[in-house]
């Protein structure tokens, strides 16, 4: 649990931006984008203002779970180089404030999403927050090296919520969008763990790099990338795919597989020599990868609605 005693000495009052930082705006941007694609790719039209509200409440729900994550993980955030400047370990916001903000925004976002769209979407958002905070943050993150694999589901739900907000149901298309993000998460985070290596060791978080070693992590990245490529290219033959999506998927998955193959062939001496160049490149590519796939789905949805290729 969080040790709050270290967070009570304040150099100054918290600013609004510190509370915004609790909501993990960078993660929120991914949530907003994938939820937006899920909403627009759905076959049922939605009033533009209701669509805007749906995306806003999904983003707030995602941000709320980020605040609750920072409340619970304040002790390990203070140890890791990547996270030690977050508002709680930096002493700008008290852990109890993050808890209050997270709980309040969770309730607010779920209720307002239900009122604005439907209760299926709201229920899915509530489950996502529960999954990220309780299943991932409180339980799996410190208990199993598969934390990223199972916890990745929480980040994969937004396109399903967007789809449900427009249609009021689940469907194979929304599950495919979920699966794409779900399968993408492990190689993305394991690449990060390879070059931010001391962080997870110092914090005693059982990342695969710590429990099974770096060699095993490289092999895992390759295996997950192969499975992801099969899924991503296969999605091109479903109703959310099309020529543009398929072309995007083939190019990016070829590059991603090449990146994973480069990683598996390398040893630690090679990485030290070039400061993890291949791992960093793979991580950057993974960001472009997900963005490009969802953009392609969005374009295909737009073309369908305007009757192009129909």
């Amino acid at each position: 649990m969080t040790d709050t005693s270290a967070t009570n000495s304040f150099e100054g009052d918290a600013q609004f931006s510190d509370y915004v930082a609790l909501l993990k705006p960078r993660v929120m941007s991914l949530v907003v984008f994938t939820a937006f694609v899920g909403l627009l790719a759905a076959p049922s039209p939605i009033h533009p203002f209701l669509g805007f509200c749906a995306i806003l409440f999904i983003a707030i729900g995602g941000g709320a779970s980020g605040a609750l994550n920072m409340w619970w993980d304040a002790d390990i955030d203070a140890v890791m180089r990547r996270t030690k400047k977050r508002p709680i370990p930096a002493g700008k916001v008290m852990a109890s404030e993050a808890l209050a903000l997270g709980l309040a925004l969770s309730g607010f976002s779920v209720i307002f999403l239900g009122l604005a769209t439907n209760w299926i979407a709201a229920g899915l958002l509530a489950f996502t927050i529960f999954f990220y905070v309780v299943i991932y943050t409180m339980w799996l993150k410190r208990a199993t090296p598969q934390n990223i694999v199972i916890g990745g589901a929480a980040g994969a739900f937004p396109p399903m919520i967007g789809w449900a907000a427009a249609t009021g149901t689940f469907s194979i298309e929304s599950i495919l969008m979920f699966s794409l993000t779900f399968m993408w998460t492990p190689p993305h985070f394991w690449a990060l763990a390879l070059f931010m290596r001391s962080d997870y060791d110092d914090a005693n978080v059982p990342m695969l790099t710590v429990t099974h070693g770096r060699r095993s992590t490289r092999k895992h990245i390759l295996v997950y990338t192969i499975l992801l490529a099969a899924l991503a290219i296969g999605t091109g033959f479903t109703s959310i795919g099309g020529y543009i999506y398929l072309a995007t998927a083939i190019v990016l998955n070829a590059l991603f597989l090449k990146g994973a193959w480069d990683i598996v062939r390398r040893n630690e001496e090679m990485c030290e020599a070039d400061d993890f160049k291949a791992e960093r490149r793979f991580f950057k590519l993974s960001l472009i990868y997900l963005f490009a796939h969802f953009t392609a789905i969005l374009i295909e949805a737009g073309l369908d609605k305007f009757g192009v290729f129909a």
Partner: protein
Amino acid sequence: MSLVKPSAVHKRRAGLNTSVGLALAAFIALVFGLTVVKVGNMDFTMPPGPEQEVQNGD
């Protein structure tokens, strides 16, 4: 002109207070917008008023 000279604490917190104020104003606008869209969009009918009920009762 303010009766009390603003202290350093007031100055430091001005930014936070303004931002919270703007967030609350945005929330009000959001609820108003949602109400307009929901009432305008759905098959929403006003319940009969007292006068209509009397007429229907005749």
